[in-house]
């Protein structure tokens, strides 16, 4: 098993445990985004880079990623969603290393990431801002405002990633507001766009190969509930918490 495969397996198990212990959902969208977050934090980002999780409902995946990097501790994860925790269901403001901005309401992360990227550009500081959005989030107008801004100010230190799992809160993205040509829209707004397999290490490697003078968007083809047979591509796992039986089954599948 490769290092990344082992890392991913451990992270998925810890993510499930965290959500099971807390009795909360949003597991499907965490599992679709987790691999890309792990890859970014372990293989792509330098100490000068920052990561903005615009799809704040995948906070659990971010916390597990930071745990895998030694930034958060086991005791931190055990507090997830509990009274008195800093690890709320959506990233909190200004109190966790590796979480530069709080998110949760969709359409906020990318504009803030634009501001962070602009500050660095004006100061001629190094470092990129990686911003991970959901696919349903592109129904928010503020995201398109942000792309207009990023293009006008040529924010080539901004990297946009989209977790294209195809499912949102109460339907598929196709059924709610079809944007089949999201990549074409991105290109039209001035981003060089690549489609990647969001769960494949060999595909995610391409994030490191984009030319630095361009503004990049990576459309990550992902699976909601990735790795758990009864969760994969199932809308209900946007919200459902795990009961004991389903938790045991999920762990067995991940460890098989």
């Amino acid at each position, binding site marked *: 098993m490769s290092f990344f495969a082992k890392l991913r397996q451990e992270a998925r198990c810890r993510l499930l445990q965290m959500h099971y212990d807390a009795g909360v959902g949003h597991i499907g969208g965490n599992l679709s985004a987790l691999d890309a977050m792990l890859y970014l934090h372990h293989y792509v980002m330098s100490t000068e880079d920052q990561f903005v999780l615009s799809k704040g409902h995948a906070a659990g995946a971010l916390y597990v990623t930071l745990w895998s990097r030694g930034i958060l501790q086991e005791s931190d994860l055990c507090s997830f969603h509990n009274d008195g925790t800093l690890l709320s269901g959506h990233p909190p*403001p*200004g109190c966790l290393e590796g979480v*530069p*901005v*709080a*998110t*949760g*309401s969709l*359409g*906020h992360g990318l*504009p*803030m*990431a*634009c*501001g*962070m*990227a*602009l*500050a*660095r550009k*004006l*100061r001629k500081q190094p470092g990129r801002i990686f911003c991970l959005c959901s696919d349903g989030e592109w129904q928010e*107008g*503020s995201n398109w*405002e*942000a792309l*207009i*801004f990023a293009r*006008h*100010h040529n924010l080539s230190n901004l990297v946009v990633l989209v977790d294209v799992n195809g499912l949102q809160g109460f339907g598929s993205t196709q059924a709610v507001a079809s944007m089949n040509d999201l990549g074409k829209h991105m290109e039209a707004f001035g981003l060089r766009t690549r489609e990647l397999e969001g769960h494949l290490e060999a595909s995610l490697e391409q994030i490191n190969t984009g030319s630095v003078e361009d503004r990049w968007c990576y459309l990550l083809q992902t699976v909601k509930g990735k790795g758990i047979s009864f969760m994969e591509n199932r809308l209900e796992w946007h919200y459902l918490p795990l009961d004991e039986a389903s938790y045991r089954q999920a762990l067995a599948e991940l460890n098989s």
Partner: protein
Amino acid sequence: MRSAACNAWVNCVTDGEFLFLTGDLGYNALEPLRERLGDRFINAGVAEQNMVSVGAGLAIEGMNVWIYSIAPFCYARPFEQIRNDICQHRLPVKLVGNGGGYGYGAQGASHHALEDYGALLTLPGMRAFVPAFSVDVEEVVDRMHQIDHPGYLRLGRCEQPPDQEVEAFSPWRRLVRGGGISVILVGPLAGPFWQHMLSMTESTRPDLWVLGELPVTDISNMPPDLLNNIAANGLCVVEEHGLQGSVGQQLAALLMGGGFTPPQFLHCYAKGYPSGTYGSQSFHRRESGLEPGQVMEALGIAP
């Protein structure tokens, strides 16, 4: 007041960390600032939600950020961005709304700001500044520049009476000493009331005060003279703002909590559009009973 504000911002620029965002507004007013700031002056376009979040991102990186627009486009359109991205992060971003109250007159309701400071003051760490006169603006901008939390600057039209000198800005200022009820005004409305009082005798006219920084959260920060007169002669609050979240409500709760029971209390506030028609700022003030003569009549004070 815009030109005064522009000059004040120009004077604030001491390093490359000052950054000004405008939502495509400021023609014939902000050009000197644009020239002074160069690439730190950013016309963010007609995209207020993005502008506010970008401002938050810049502030997270440590820049000193000011954001400017017509008042309702500054606080109402991007309210969630102000709440989540600025205030929940306790970022020292300064918002500037031009044309507070009915300032944009016959341009219509979309351009009026009748709930700006009331709405914004519900947010954590927010303070609002309402200069009454153009000469206040430099001091207000300097104060806002120094604070390490969010701020809102409500700009209006200066109506300072001719030949009257204004005391330097402070949150509470007495404009005209009088022997009657205490009248507290918020912002530029102070001008016409000040003018009105000049023709009245001191013993019968109200004791006129102007409030310039909100919220008022501690009764001990109110001038003792004012408190004593409120207790003796009552209180009238006049503001170009709606009832909910108003200074009148703030003061009423504060005074009652502090054991003050004014013998008389009158609150004059913006009542929206009673006739359903539109006109100048003066027209709307009249419709809301905010003209000095109307308030005096309501108080039973002879002209």
